[in-house]
């Protein structure tokens, strides 16, 4: 039976690996798009993954300041998503035109 600290250490390293993979997968979605809302959604998800990273780093290092970093990042991510959504809502990009361009090979 391993000690609690060793288990925590191993699980933190495992989580960092898993989070890196998911970060890359989300980046693939950001690049692929195909439409603007898809990218916004992926960026939102990217913020969620980054918050996970910060939480794991906070557990590993024991710095309590990481809590504030995570909350601030969540706030910024939320505001960014809301602003992007307002942009889409105000007709910043013509959806029909964008989808027509997608369909083109």
């Amino acid at each position, binding site marked *: 039976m391993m*000690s*609690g*600290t060793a*288990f*925590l250490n*191993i*699980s*933190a390293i*495992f*989580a*960092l690996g*898993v*989070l890196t*993979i*998911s*970060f890359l*997968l*989300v980046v*693939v*979605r950001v690049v692929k798009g195909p*439409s603007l*809302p*898809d990218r*916004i*959604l*992926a960026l*939102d*998800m990217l913020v*969620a*993954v980054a*918050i*996970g990273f910060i*939480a*794991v780093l*906070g*557990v590993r290092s*024991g710095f*309590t300041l*990481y*809590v*504030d970093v*995570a*909350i601030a990042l*969540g*706030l910024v991510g*939320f505001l960014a*998503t*809301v602003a*992007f*959504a*307002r942009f*889409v*809502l105000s*007709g910043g*990009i*013509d*959806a*029909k035109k964008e*989808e027509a361009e997608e369909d083109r090979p």
Partner: protein
Amino acid sequence: MIDGAADYLAGGLIIVGALFALVASVGLLRLPDLYTRMHAASKAGTVGSCLMLIALAAHIGEPATALRALAGVVFFLLTAPISAHLLAKAAYSAGYRMWEGAVSDDLAETAAVAKKNGPSGTEG
């Protein structure tokens, strides 16, 4: 003993949270359209990052900071559905279509009616 338990709890939460984040990203890649992807991101993604923050709270142990981390969790639970809802509404009204496999669209009729008497309706 109590310290050890907190470590096990934090470790387990971290692993589960990271796996949920991974599932959300895979869903983001595999699901067919924006609206279904939103399910993956808003549910699994939120649960993932919240679990990891709870792990951070459990690991810190000091009540003031732990409470702050839990306040962060509540904050994420409040904001995630709002941003998902706003993005879905914006995308739908901007005209992004659903996937061809969609079986029902009650909003289409209302949207069509709204478009028909749109100019007069918005003025009044």
